[in-house]
């Protein structure tokens, strides 16, 4: 490309793409303060979670904290369904996953709404998506806090 205009343009583009990824939003709104809020329709800005590296990383930490692996293992599923296949029981969208977490599902999925904050529920939803390889490689976590039993989320390709 012809410098300097081309390089500057490319740099600006890369910086813009990286902006959302690196924003640290530290404050979660209180849990259970407005339960109805969590049940509302599509999130205004899903990229605040699916495009934000800290949010997905927090989701990874929360996945272990709240023992999601107890039923879903490390994404491969156990007594709970897998997140790494192409078939999703209730739809593999961020909103459907969020609804499962907040309201629970029949046959054993507990309802976490009102117990965890809204931010935490969206962070967990984004992390669940990353386990199937559906998030951008630079947003998905590339390090696990335990023995590695599967490719990292950043290295996972979505199932065909």
């Amino acid at each position, binding site marked *: 490309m012809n410098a300097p205009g081309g390089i500057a343009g490319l740099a600006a583009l890369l910086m813009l793409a990286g902006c959302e990824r690196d924003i640290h939003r*530290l*404050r*979660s*709104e*209180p*849990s*259970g*303060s407005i339960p109805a809020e969590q049940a509302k329709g599509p999130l205004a800005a899903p990229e605040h979670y699916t495009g934000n590296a800290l949010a997905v990383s927090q989701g990874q*930490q929360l996945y272990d*904290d*709240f023992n999601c692996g107890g039923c879903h293992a490390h994404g491969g599923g156990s007594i709970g369904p897998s997140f790494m296949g192409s078939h999703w029981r209730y739809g593999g969208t961020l909103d459907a996953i969020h609804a499962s977490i907040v309201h629970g599902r029949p046959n054993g999925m507990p309802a976490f709404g*009102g*117990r*965890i*904050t809204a931010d*935490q529920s969206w962070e967990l939803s984004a992390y669940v998506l990353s386990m199937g390889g559906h998030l951008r490689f630079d947003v998905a976590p590339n390090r696990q*806090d335990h023995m590695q039993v599967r490719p990292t989320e950043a290295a996972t390709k979505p199932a065909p």
Partner: protein
Amino acid sequence: MNADAHSVLVPAGPQAAGIAHLWWIYFGVCLVIALAIIGLTAALALRRTPVTAPDVAGDSRLARIVGGAVILSVLIVFGLLIVDLVIARSLRVPADRPALSIEVTGHQWWWSVRYLDPAVHKSFVTANEIHVPVGRTVRLLLKSADVIHSFWAPSFAGKKDLVPGHPAELTFQADRAGTFRGQCAEFCGLQHAHMDLVIVAEPPKQFEAWATASRGDGAVARGDSAVRGRAVFMSHSCALCHTIEGTPARSQVGPDLTHLASRTTIGAGAFPNTRGYLAGWIVDAPSLKPGVSMPPNPLPGDDLQALLDYLESLK
């Protein structure tokens, strides 16, 4: 806590005393050398007669002086090295010496403390505060739950990193009673600077009394307010992250609260453990310590007061 509670130069045990000795020896030697060099340079600078660059190779007297200085420097450096090795060797504690074993796990940004015992039912868990008996070897097993932290209690020993996946050991002994301070010494995130430890060294009888009390379950709620407070604790999201032994709350995401009221600080040394600070912490911890995992919990006034009554009963 005064400055002597966390000073490298005010040791409270043999390991820290060895480090302090080493520090003073190095300080003394370096001070003498620095004064000599400054003195010689000043003498040179203040000469009235002009100075010409010396011909070291040609002048054998000068060559002997320079050669002698080089040999002296090498001897001093190796001497300091030997002093270091001798002191370090004298501080080593044999691995088979019986010791009180405490497992310390670093989290962002608090310390989880588990007292180990060969009789497993005698183990117990606390957070951010370590009690040790005076005169007994203490062996810390250092682990991390997330990123690299470092355990540093300058009154007792040097720093030791807590590396995730690589458990380490740190051995020390307290030689006198008192309350001392420790802190995290490896940058671990936003609140690295607010991740303190309180280390209480006490006579063995007092330590045993504390340990026995700590093994017990959380106090049973007595009185209407505390009973209501316990119900608030269990029905809100508190139980999702905290443990109170003897209750259904058994999560290990956050610090163990079984004997919260016996601790002197909250938030890993961030604030004194008083009713006011505790209320502020419960209601809005992120505004007090930005970035913590504990979310805000706005509670109606009555519920908050009842919860505080219950938590204050957990001695």
